[in-house]
């Protein structure tokens, strides 16, 4: 019986000096995961090798046993297999990886349910929000120690988690600014008389292989690979240069010395290592790093290109849905992602609410899908706006790779990759907006692109809504909660109160009516720490970080 896996212990050095077992040798992934899964372990071998720790008193966890026997403090260290994703079903070839605890705040639930509390907020407080400060993407790195945000002004800000302070056990590691750099500048396309926005559409981290960190950031047209490295030593005692940098005359040198390294204040440098440009005619909406750590894809409205991280002057076009006659265009690509374990599989979603899974081994141009996911329309809920609200704004694979989640305007759907005709789970995010669709269409809010994310163990999902509300759904208990990212509830370690929208009839106290919602305050971008219960929520120009409460 495969046991649940635990998160690496907290004392692990966040910057491994040697590559972990997950090296980037080509072919390693494909071989290793079959080996791992045959043993019933998680494909992410790091979790197996480094920490096989279970909490005291834990005698075993059957797949169907609920997680309540773990106390909240222990739930951080171990992750139980979600009850649904039992590895025993024959259809699941890859038992889900549970790298950490998951779950949703229970509110007034049982004793072991945890609650979300405020941790930090980043960003200016003024009412007047500069357009350039609006956050446009949020992403944790693979270890969760770094949190990157991109904004409309083309800047990337990276926060790093401080090491926990033993003397203050109640304050978990806080995120502080680690590096800030200008990733993209506004450009002007002279041929088309168009300005290319510098807004960062997506950031994706690369798995760490040495002391430096790498990320891909993209605007509408250009993708850049950035290297973020630390410098804490400098060389002193050059022979040909003075201390202030002036060159010395070689003839004056009478003695040679060996330069020595001296410590200096930590400096974090970001430098662009690769620039992948001129491959997209339309606006890039997604990038996704492949599990082979060598290639990545970039998707615009009509095409998807495959790149090699080392090669900037060439890319392969793997999907092209542009019709011969543009007037016949009825569908665009809205998001794309590589499978987390299979380096030949990717999916892309469309504006018609369909998802196509493609296998790059089948042909060079993956215009013909291997799987086609679409839910038949419910005729009773048909309206003029049915197609618009069915457009998928985000698609994300679960960490296990067995499921994927799609976000359309009103709901989040979880799909099993083995079942194409309907999702296995559907969660309503803000169904009360269904009667307001015309108004939302008029003010263009109906075109808002909300993102969604999984927690580390795939047991919970999160997505944003309006009025600075965001929603979390627990897949096991089927409970959901609505929380608000606001300055009012921004006291340190203040527990977030669940919010409720009154859909009609009498409005109870503390409820907010649909007409009072502020549709300018929308939470489009959220991120969940890969192993812990820490979430980052972007509310216009502010970044909120919430953590689960430690008793």
């Amino acid at each position, binding site marked *: 019986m495969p046991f649940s896996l635990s998160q690496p212990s907290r004392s692990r050095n966040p910057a491994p000096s040697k590559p972990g077992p997950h090296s980037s040798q080509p072919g390693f992934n494909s071989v290793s995961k079959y080996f791992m899964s045959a043993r019933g372990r998680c494909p992410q071998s790091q979790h197996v090798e480094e920490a096989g720790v279970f909490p005291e008193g834990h005698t075993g966890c059957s797949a169907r046993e609920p997680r309540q026997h773990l106390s909240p403090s222990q739930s951080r260290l171990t992750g139980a297999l979600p009850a649904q994703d039992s590895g025993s079903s024959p259809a699941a070839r890859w038992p889900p990886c549970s790298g950490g605890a998951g779950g949703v705040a229970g509110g007034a639930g049982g004793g072991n349910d945890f609650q979300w509390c405020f941790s930090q907020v980043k960003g200016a407080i003024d009412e007047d*929000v500069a*357009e350039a400060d609006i956050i446009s993407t949020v992403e944790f790195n693979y270890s969760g120690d770094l949190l990157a945000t991109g904004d409309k002004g083309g800047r990337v800000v990276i926060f790093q988690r401080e090491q926990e302070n033993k003397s203050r056990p109640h304050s978990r590691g806080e995120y502080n600014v680690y590096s800030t750099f200008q990733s993209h500048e506004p450009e002007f396309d002279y041929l*088309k*008389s*168009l*300005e290319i*926005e510098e807004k960062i559409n997506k950031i994706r981290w690369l798995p760490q292989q040495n002391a430096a960190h790498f990320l891909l950031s993209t605007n*509408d047209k250009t993708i850049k690979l950035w290297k973020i490295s630390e410098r804490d030593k400098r060389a002193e005692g050059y022979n040909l240069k003075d201390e202030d940098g002036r060159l010395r005359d070689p003839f004056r040198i009478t003695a040679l010395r060996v330069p020595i390294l001296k410590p200096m204040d930590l400096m974090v440098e970001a430098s662009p290592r690769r620039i992948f440009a001129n491959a997209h*005619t*339309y*606006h890039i909406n997604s990038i996704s790093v492949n599990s082979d750590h060598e290639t990545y894809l970039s998707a615009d*409205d*009509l095409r998807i290109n495959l790149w090699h991280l080392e090669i900037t002057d060439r890319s392969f076009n793997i999907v092209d849905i542009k019709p011969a006659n*543009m*007037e*016949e*265009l*009825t*569908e*665009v690509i*809205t998001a794309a992602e590589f499978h987390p374990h299979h380096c030949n599989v990717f999916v892309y979603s469309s*504006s*018609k609410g369909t998802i196509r899974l493609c296998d790059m081994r089948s042909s060079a141009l993956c215009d013909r899908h291997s799987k086609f996911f679409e839910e038949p*329309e419910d*005729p009773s809920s*048909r309206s*003029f*706006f049915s*197609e*618009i609200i069915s*457009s998928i704004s985000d698609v994300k694979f679960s960490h296990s790779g067995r499921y994927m989640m799609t976000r359309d305007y009103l709901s989040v759907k979880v799909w099993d990759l083995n079942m194409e005709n309907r999702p296995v789970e559907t969660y309503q995010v803000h169904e009360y907006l269904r*009667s*307001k*669709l*015309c*108004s*939302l*269409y*008029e*003010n*263009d809010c109906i*075109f*808002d692109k909300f993102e969604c994310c999984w927690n580390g163990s795939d047991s919970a999902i999160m997505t944003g809504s309006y009025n600075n509300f965001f929603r979390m759904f627990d897949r096991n208990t089927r409970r959901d909660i609505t929380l608000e990212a606001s300055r009012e509830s921004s006291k340190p370690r203040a527990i977030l109160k669940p919010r409720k929208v009154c859909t009609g009839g009498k409005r109870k106290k503390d409820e907010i009516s649909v*007409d009072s919602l502020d*549709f*300018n305050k929308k939470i489009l971008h959220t991120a969940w720490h890969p192993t812990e219960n820490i979430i980052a929520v972007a509310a216009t120009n502010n970044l909120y970080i919430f953590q689960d409460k430690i008793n």
Partner: protein
Amino acid sequence: MCQQQLHCSISPCDRWSWCLPVKWFMLGRGLKRKLSDYEENMAGLSSAFDSSRNLTYPLKRQLVLNMCLTKLQTYKMLVEPDLHRSVLIANTVRQIQEEMRQETSQQPVNVCNGLGLHSQNYTGVDSAGISAQLLSGVNQQESNCCDSRSAEEPIENGLLMVSDDDMSSAISSILKDLDFMEDISPPTCLVPAGDDQPKSPENVGLKLEDDRQELKGAECVFGSFEISNSTSYLKDLAIDDIFEDIDTSMYDSDFCCPPQMPSRVPSATTEETLKTFPTCNSSSTNSIQICRTDLSELDHIMEILVGS
């Protein structure tokens, strides 16, 4: 890229011009709509759509269609319209169009029922418009997004409770708005021939042509993406016009071929273009004459040189 603005993207003027008639259908709602508050709450036409039961299905549909067309027009004016949004809106327009056509095919049954009131007014206008569409043989794109809605509600004749006056006022307001939209030069791929745009608002038939124009325009919106992904002025010009001011009289060998003016643009647009680019167009006509003058002079000179 269509910037995600914090405030509504359509200016209040556009919005108000065609929502006026609907106010009359909001019986006693007492909604106050101030322009300054508009962006803060969603009062106005759309809330009438969402909440009022007095709006009939065809009227709702027409309002949605108008909104779609307005948006498409607005996007075309943008430097770089969002392809995703344009596709979604165009699909909605096609869907409504398809539905209207399906209802037209059921229309003869309704007329025979002798329900003269609505067939005279709103629905009649629609049906005449749609039959005009069918007669003119407008070639629609493949019905792709339209899922089969055989159970789709036929026109609920009984629900039309509005008066004649209200209807005609509604129609004239919509026409005025379509007029307003006509002033913006439509894309060059519109079918031009003979489509002079009569500007008489009283002519109910105008609404049909306008609808047809706009619907065709909706489908042509992607043509601009093809060319330049923008609505830059280059698209409105005939390509040759750009080069007309270059004097190539010395090099033209066949003197009798005038520059090719593509007859793609309707006459209204041509005037528009002429207004905007006077130098180019005037020189185009001049250059023909210059060309011929120069050539005759050249002949003359040649004769002198040859001495014959």
